[in-house]
């Protein structure tokens, strides 16, 4: 083989691309990963935006990363270290707060303070959700079959889905069916009465979607976020040492140990096609690389509308990729702090180093109506005047993230619509930053005096920097008609594409986004099954 001759080329050095490459290299294949940016990690990167302050620029918590990947690639050995996020703190509009601690009894007592009924219902709710998440989990590792196909592979796949369904009890099956279709507001209103509790829980159902908590289908997104596990502990959220860059960093280290070649500053212009097959890529600098197969870990639109000449793909397929919903709806505000903002609902003393709430997440989600109104703004192309914000203070968990005594703060904010009316400008970006600060100020009045530097990332910026078309953090919304055998499009949900030798293993494929790594792993396994290498 010559220097530019590979078994497999992986486009995109995000976590999925690196996972796929590692699995292929593990099988003894010669693999190269091509990354457009000067660093690997894609949307899971840590960057020093202000000198001394490190930020996990886009994604910021870990939970969904598949345990089998951690095991197979021996990620802990390669530097993966997950630090738990012990609490969620929701300040309320009346000056009180609602907190969930990692101590179950403490949480129960806290809930009891707000509503004895909710405290009673809480355990049962948690049990039901955990059961539902466990029931749905086997689907994550299934290769979605095409129900309209009569091929043996698809029929076997359907049989597997049938077997899976039959393995559930009647109750579990209905639970899953209901959770897959209802709105998170409807789900939560059946259980609870405390607004702040419902608001905070409902927030998991809107992450990365262009939907409000009253939109049907959001309960599924909520459930998707329940599927996380850290070291086998269900529904645990953590923060990776060195941020999300620490996650992709460890996968990168693993890939290096397995002999994967990674090229940065290597932007792909086009997939080379010969005799109806993908046979390599052409880079923007004109370099050509040859391979037996090519896998894209970019979003579906770049994968199929940009990298491949349209004449190689059926018209129907192109249309359905054009129709794939990938509307970014969230922004990210990364703030460098000289001190911690002090929340009036539970003020800290001293410099706040001992503050418990700052060690966990702070959620601005006082009620379902609050989030729904934030969505109403976005629905008509506006930035939410009072957005939902999920804050964490990574420097409280990992002091290496900021200079001594100083802090970094990461604010996930929704909604910031990609299709902003009038378009995104510097001024509109400032407006988003101001909406976030003004909102936080209601609960932590000293926030402005703490700020040393602030980076505002709009969905347009996510698109520009991370290369995700539409700036959707999941590469495509987790809508009912965009999951399982419909993701990214019907008939092509098995990681293969209409172009032979071209594979698709990114968040836009089954089972979806959220730093899971599953699409990359499953795609690599399918590539190996096809025996073209």
């Amino acid at each position, binding site marked *: 083989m010559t220097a530019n001759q590979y078994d497999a080329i992986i486009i995109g050095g995000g976590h999925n691309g690196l996972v796929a490459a590692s699995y292929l290299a593990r099988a003894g294949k010669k693999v190269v990963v091509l990354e457009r940016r000067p660093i690997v990690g894609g949307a899971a990167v840590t960057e020093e935006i202000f000198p001394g302050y490190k930020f996990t620029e886009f994604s910021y918590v870990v939970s969904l990363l598949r345990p089998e990947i951690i095991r197979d690639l021996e990620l802990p050995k390669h530097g993966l270290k997950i630090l738990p996020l012990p609490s969620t703190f929701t300040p309320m509009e009346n000056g009180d707060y609602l907190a969930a601690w990692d101590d179950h009894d403490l949480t129960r007592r806290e809930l009891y303070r707000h509503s004895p009924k909710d405290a009673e219902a809480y355990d049962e709710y948690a049990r039901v959700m955990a059961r539902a998440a466990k029931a749905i989990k086997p689907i994550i590792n299934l290769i979605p079959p095409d129900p309209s196909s009569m091929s043996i592979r698809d029929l076997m796949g359907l049989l597997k889905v049938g077997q899976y369904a039959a393995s*559930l009890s009647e109750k579990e099956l209905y639970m899953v069916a*209901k959770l897959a*279709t209802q709105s998170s507001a409807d789900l939560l209103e059946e259980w609870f009465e405390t607004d702040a509790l419902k608001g905070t829980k409902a927030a998991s159902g809107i992450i990365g979607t262009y939907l409000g908590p009253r939109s049907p289908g959001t309960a599924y997104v909520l459930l998707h976020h329940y599927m996380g596990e850290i070291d086998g502990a269900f529904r645990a959220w953590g923060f990776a040492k060195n941020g999300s860059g620490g996650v992709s960093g460890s996968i990168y280290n693993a890939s290096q140990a397995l002999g994967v070649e990674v090229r940065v500053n290597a932007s792909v212009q086009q997939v080379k096609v010969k005799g109806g097959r993908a046979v390599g890529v052409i880079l923007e600098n004109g370099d050509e690389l040859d391979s037996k197969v090519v896998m894209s870990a970019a979003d579906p639109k770049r994968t199929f509308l940009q990298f491949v000449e349209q004449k190689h793909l059926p018209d129907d397929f192109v249309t359905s990729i054009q129709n794939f919903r990938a509307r970014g709806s969230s922004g990210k505000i990364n703030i460098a702090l000289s001190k911690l903002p002090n929340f009036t609902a539970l003020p800290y003393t001293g410099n706040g180093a001992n503050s418990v709430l700052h060690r966990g997440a702070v959620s601005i989600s006082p009620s379902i*109506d609050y989030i729904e109104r934030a969505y109403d703004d976005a629905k008509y192309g506006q930035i939410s005047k009072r957005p939902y914000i999920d804050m964490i203070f990574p420097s409280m968990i990992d002091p290496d993230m900021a200079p001594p005594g100083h802090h970094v703060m990461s604010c996930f904010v929704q909604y910031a619509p990609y299709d902003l009316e009038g378009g995104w400008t510097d001024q509109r970006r400032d407006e988003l930053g101001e909406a976030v600060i003004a909102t936080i100020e209601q609960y932590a009045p000293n926030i402005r005096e703490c700020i040393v530097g602030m980076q505002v990332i709009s969905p347009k910026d996510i698109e520009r920097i991370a290369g995700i078309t539409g700036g959707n953090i999941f590469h495509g919304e987790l809508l009912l008609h965009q999951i399982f055998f419909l993701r990214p499009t019907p008939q092509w949900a098995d990681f293969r594409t209409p172009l032979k030798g071209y594979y698709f293993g990114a968040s836009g494929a089954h089972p979806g986004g959220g730093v899971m790594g599953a699409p990359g792993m499953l795609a690599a396994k399918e590539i190996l099954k096809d025996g073209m290498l």
Partner: protein
Amino acid sequence: MSHYDNIIIGAGHNGLVAAAYLAKQGKKVLVLERRSIIGGSVVTESFGDNFSVDSLHTGGTLRPDIIKDLKLASYGLQPDSAPQPFITLLADGSPLTLDVESIKRISEKDAARFPEFVRFMNKAAQIMDVTYSTIMPRLPMNFGFKEGYGLLEWALELKLAGRKDMLNFIRALPMTAQELVEEYFESDIVKAAICAVAIHGSTLGPMGAGTGYTLIHSWMNRGGLAHKNVGKAGEITTALANAVKAFGGEIRTEAEVASIKIENQIAKGVVLINGEEISANQIFSAADPKHTLLKLVGAQDLPPEFVWHTQSIKMRGSVAKIHLQTNGNHGIPEGTLVVAPSIKYLEKAYDATKYGEVSEEPYLEVTTSGNTISIHFQFAPYALKSGDWKLEIKKVEELAINSLSEYFPNLRASISNLKSLSPLDLEQTYGLTEGDLNHGQLMLDQFLFMRPIPGWSNHKTPIDNLYLCGSGVHGGGGVSGAAGRNAAKSVR
């Protein structure tokens, strides 16, 4: 105490369909109706001299096989009436009929796509129709050959639809109506007019997931975009009542059921509000599931989890009706006309309901026949955050008339008589819990084997010999009669 084979609670179209099928099998059948007239939601009433209107459902068509089975043609029902025009209003106020020729006026591209859209929708409606005529058994493997066979037939029908239509049908169900129409059309006015049909009677906006399903549902029930009228709504239920009687069944009006008599988890009969008791082997309730299970049965006789699920059924009516009698000089064209200028307009009209408010700029569907105008007003939520429907209904009347007058300035002066019905009236007069026309919202989590609640879509209830045959169970919603027929057929 008199005794019957079957008692049917409610003489709406589903109750009557069930009664007719049962009577046809030779059963001794009694239908009990609360009101002094039969018809339920499918009723024609007089509110004054020459002021006779279809109070709730304007027209509708029963399933053709029901018309045939029950020989309804011999009672004057015409199964194959021509569809009415479906009209929307352009920004300048001029009407636009939704057909290829008229759409050309605003978009050549949309006109070219229209036939393919209609073809797909007809196909989807056909698949939906087969879905509704299949009784959804309990899942997963807890059903016998007969039920399994029905499911198999259904799966076969899906396969026969062809690969592309089948996948597109499945995909369309959870989609938003907006997404669905955007795959075909570019003009907002055409898209919005179709979206209006998708949200008709449902408490969701066109940007809500699952309105793809409600569009197909409405399309199936109407036979297209416009209501396909077989005549006055009351003619449907009158023909059905005649069929019931011809097969030897009895119908009693002003006979309100107070409770269902239950002994050892078995339904034995009913008790009327005047204290009269009537016994029967089987009871069919065409009332909505919440009313049937929580009021007529009562929580004390049901398993706690079942009660919890029943309480959680989403009813959420948000429709008010305003009927106008005019001197005819109103300027509104005959047929079905919608005030739905844009998708955003419809979505904003819906937004109000989320916070318990009446839409200031409502979506209206106006059915006009000569001097009589019926306005379907959305959204007027049953659960108002503040205010009382007895007073608020005046505001709704004004909003409706003002909104229409913008396009038809002569309307107000032409009005001679008016009758309006609030969501509270829908509950109190017509017995629809929370004013929900469909006995439960048509949403994906209340669809197929989850309607009315998960596991109980096969017309059965935890009470032996008590069956559900109304719109609230699978097959229901709209004027098709599928729920009533399926219920009657599920019992041997």
